[in-house]
Structure formats: structure tokens, C-alpha cells
């Protein structure tokens, strides 16, 4: 029996490791490096109703132990994603979590309705936390009532479980988590990026064309870990944790704090093989900790 297997609403994961949305595209590039079937799941790039060309460049900037990004949800749009990307991904034995974004509630609903029909899409990840678009995105993620409403609307049409991706840029993330749980969310994914900024010291102007960007990478791990720990105490739906995960030890920490599975984002840029490497290291780490099954890790900080 597989020591790494994790069962979550809609998702039968052979292991709890998956690339985070936006850090893995639709898989094609990494498929050249390793077999995607090795992954627990894949969170694809945010998909919107229409094609989006995103923000002007520069879109990324490096910071101390982290990076800022303001891609701006660039993606080919619902139709192309279904017809080209998702179909292509069917060749792999890996559940897809479709990250859904939009400007208005109707956009989210429309995208969720159709994309959830795709054969390999096993769950929706409702992106109410993108800090890099003028409207939509984070505006949904910082108000509990609005977040709850959107969750309910998407739940009503989705044919697969709905996970809501929370923004860390809030005073009380527990409140938002409880609100989306109450309105039917099947799970929570967290955290999205912290809003940050880097200036060009010479000119004094922002390095990123968009001005601000989303902070990710090892620098944010302490904040992400604490938020997962907090939310785990307040909701009973499963959490997929992320935020700076780079090593197998980071995975242990997030699961200990209460995550049932984890996503790896920025680390894919530093080491494109980070996901398969972590998956290979997990069993030995479980032995070292004296656990038989990876699910035993979830929430051990709280015991």
C-alpha cells in the first residue's frame, strides 16, 4: 500500500506534492524534464473566460530569499485551455486542479461550469487572491461576504469539488476561511502571494512594470505556515498548503501545521526537478520521523 497516497475531495493523490498554479504553466515545459504522472496533481495556470495577455514587462523581480511577480493572469482563455492544454494533459495519469480567475462573478461561474466538465479536471481552485490584476482577483479574497457569495455561485455550477485559494493580504484569514467553508467550499488552498514591491535604487521607480507584485518563495514561508496553522484550527475542510516550499522538510512543516497536501511554486524556477525530488525523499523522511503514512503528519503541531 502506498505510504504517500492522500485522498481529498475529488482528488486521489498518489502523493501530496503538486506544482502550484502559475509556476508550472500547463505542464508542457516540465514534461520535457520528467514524467508528469509522477506528480500528486497539477495546478494549472489561472484560466479566464477570454484570452489574457497579462501585464507589461518586467513582470518579475528578485528579492531577499524570494521573488515578486506580476504576470497578470496571462492565459489563452477557457476555450483554448480546454481544447489544447487539458486534452494534451490527458496523456498523463495525474489529476488536474483548474485554477479559475475572472473579473466578475459571472466570469468565474462560466469558466468553472465548463472547465469542470473536462475529463481530467478533478477540482477547481478558485483564485480570489491574485494581487496582480486591476479588478477581480484579490478584491474577492479580502472580503469574507464577497468570497462566500462567489464560492456559493461557483459551487452551484461546478461538477467537481471547489477549493478556494486564500489571499494572505488580510487582517483575519480565519474569517475568510470560515466564510467560504460555510458557503460550501470543499477545501482551501493557501497562500497566494503577499503584495510587495521592489524599487530600482538608481531611478527610484518600481522594477516591475505593474508597480507592485506578488511576493513568493522561502521568504514568505513563516507567514504561510502560521496562516495554515491558524486556518487548520478553524475549519474542518482540507487545506492544500503552499508558500516558500523548497525542501522535503518544508513539506513536513506545512503538513504538521495542518495541510493535507502541499503545492510547490517558486522553487520550480530554482530547481525544475524539485517536485519529483521531494517525492523521492518523502518515504525516507517519514521513516526518520517514525511515521508509516504521510497522512499521519497532517496537524501534528496541534496534537
Amino acid at each position, binding site marked *: 500500500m502506498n505510504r504517500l497516497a492522500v485522498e481529498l475531495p475529488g482528488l486521489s493523490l498518489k502523493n501530496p506534492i503538486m506544482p502550484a498554479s502559475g509556476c*508550472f*504553466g500547463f505542464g*508542457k515545459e516540465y514534461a520535457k*524534464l520528467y514524467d508528469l504522472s509522477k506528480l500528486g496533481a497539477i495546478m494549472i495556470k489561472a484560466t479566464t473566460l477570454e484570452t489574457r*495577455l497579462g501585464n507589461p514587462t518586467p*513582470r518579475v*523581480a528578485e528579492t531577499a*530569499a524570494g521573488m515578486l511577480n506580476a504576470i497578470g493572469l496571462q492565459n489563452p482563455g477557457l476555450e483554448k485551455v480546454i481544447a489544447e492544454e487539458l486534452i494534451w494533459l490527458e496523456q498523463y495519469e495525474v489529476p488536474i486542479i483548474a485554477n479559475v480567475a475572472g473579473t466578475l462573478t459571472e466570469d468565474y461561474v462560466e469558466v468553472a461550469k465548463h472547465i469542470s466538465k473536462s475529463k481530467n479536471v478533478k477540482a477547481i481552485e478558485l483564485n480570489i487572491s491574485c494581487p496582480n490584476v486591476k479588478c477581480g482577483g484579490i478584491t474577492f479574497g479580502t472580503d469574507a461576504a464577497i468570497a462566500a457569495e462567489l464560492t456559493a455561485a461557483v459551487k452551484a455550477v461546478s461538477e467537481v469539488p471547489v477549493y478556494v485559494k486564500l489571499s494572505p493580504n488580510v487582517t483575519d484569514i480565519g474569517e475568510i476561511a470560515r466564510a467560504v467553508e460555510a458557503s460550501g467550499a470543499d477545501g482551501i488552498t493557501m497562500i497566494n502571494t503577499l503584495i510587495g514591491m521592489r524599487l530600482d535604487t538608481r531611478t527610484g521607480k518600481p522594477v516591475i512594470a505593474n508597480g507592485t507584485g506578488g511576493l513568493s518563495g522561502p521568504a514568505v514561508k513563516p507567514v504561510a505556515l502560521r496562516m495554515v496553522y491558524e486556518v487548520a484550527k478553524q475549519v474542518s475542510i482540507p487545506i492544500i498548503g503552499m508558500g516558500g516550499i523548497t525542501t522535503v522538510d518544508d513539506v513536513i512543516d506545512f503538513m504538521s501545521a495542518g495541510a493535507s497536501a502541499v503545492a510547490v511554486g517558486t522553487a520550480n*524556477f530554482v530547481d525544475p526537478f524539485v517536485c519529483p525530488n521531494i517525492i523521492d525523499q518523502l518515504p525516507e523522511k517519514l521513516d526518520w520521523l517514525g511515521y508509516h503514512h504521510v497522512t499521519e503528519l497532517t496537524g501534528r503541531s496541534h496534537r
Partner: protein
Amino acid sequence: MIRQERMRVVKHKEIAHNIFELTLIGQLVHDMKNPGQFVHIRVSESYEPLLRRPISIASIDRETLEFTMIYRAEGRGTTILSQAKPGQEVDVLGPLGNGFPLGQASDGEHVLLIGGGIGVPPLYELSKRLVDVGVKPIHILGFQSADVVFYENEFRELGETHIVTVDGSLGHQGFVTNVLDSIAEEVSTYFACGPTAMLGALQNALPDTKGFLSYEERMGCGLGACFACVCKTTEAVEADYVKVCSDGPVFPAGVVRL
């Protein structure tokens, strides 16, 4: 195939002010195809600096499995890289991107190779490969000032070479575009790498010549997955955008919107 490999430092020396020539050895060299491709380098095990640094391949030696890069140590990452000693290992991801197309010019034809600053290195491997097939490269190499000029002789050995410096401390004073007119020969194609402003000026200056330009953009993954390095395109092409890392860094003139 793209590999990630800890390659060993064979040679590493400063060849001009803050300009370093780094030669690495490893299996990854097997897969290097066209000049103009690049590698993505992790300069330290630490989380700071975090991201890889894209650096062009300046010359390839398939026999010895060695390749050479030339880079400017300016910021945090490249400064750390510049301290790597022979025997030490460097984490390299590559080869990445599509380089300059070979076979665009044929035996006996003249072509222009135009480089600006740290855009010069990839032109060296390109020039060698063109010379191999009898093409006659003419080099126009622009630099800020004499102290940062490198590879002048290496290029002269391959063909006619014009050095241009902004402050006039070596060769012609001004920009690479200033010497274009002084080129007597009939050129069929031009290849360029350098600051975006330079590439734009060249496209305007050589509207009727077939050209291939190598672009720079801030990168995340370097593989085509993160959409960090996209450039909008002109009406000339169908796609709305291209990714410098995976579709480029080299594009035909007129493709990228400037």
C-alpha cells in the same frame, strides 16, 4: 534535451573590467545546438540570491565537452558567480532557447554580426560557425568604453571587425548604427544581440536586410512555463506574444513589437 547539471569550472578569468570569461565542462555540452542559446545558472546554494541567471553560450567545444560564457559581474548574483574557482561546481540548467538560425547565408556571402556590450558573447560562436561554412562575417561591436572591450582579436581572426565605444576611448566614437554606412560590402543578412534600444535602432537602419535579433527579458523559469519573459508581437506574425526564453531569445527582425 534540457539538463540540470553541476558542471566543473575549468577556467575563470577577468578579461576586461568586471567582464569574466568562464569555461565549464560537462555532459550538458552534448546538447548545445545553435549559437545564441543560453544557460540558466544558479550562483549559490543559498536562498539569496534565489533565482537563476540567464547567460548566453559564447563558445562550444564538443570534443572536450567544454563551453565558455562571458558575463559582466554587476549585480549580486553575477558578483557571487565571479568568485567561482577552477575545480568548483556550478549548477547549470540548459541549453535553453533557440539560437541564431544557421544556413541563412551561403558560402562567400557577407553577413553583419552586431553586438552591444554583454550582447557580444553569443556572436562569437555564431561567427565561428558561419566561417566554418565559408560565410564572411563583418563584426560591429559596441561597448561603453575601452576598459570593457573584450574579444577584439578573437573576432578579428574571424573577419572584418569594427569596435565602437560610446565615449570614443577605442575605435569609432558613438553607437553601432553609426558605422553601418561605412560598411562597403553587400550584406545578405544581419545578426544582432544587445540592449533592446540597439535592436530597435538596427531594425530601422536595416529595413530591407534579413535580420535576426536576440532579446533580453527578466526571467523566472527560463523554460516557458511562467510567462515572465513575454514580448508582444507585431501584426507581421499570428501569435499575440512570444516568450524570450523558449520561443527566443532570437527572433527574426519585425516579429517583436518594440
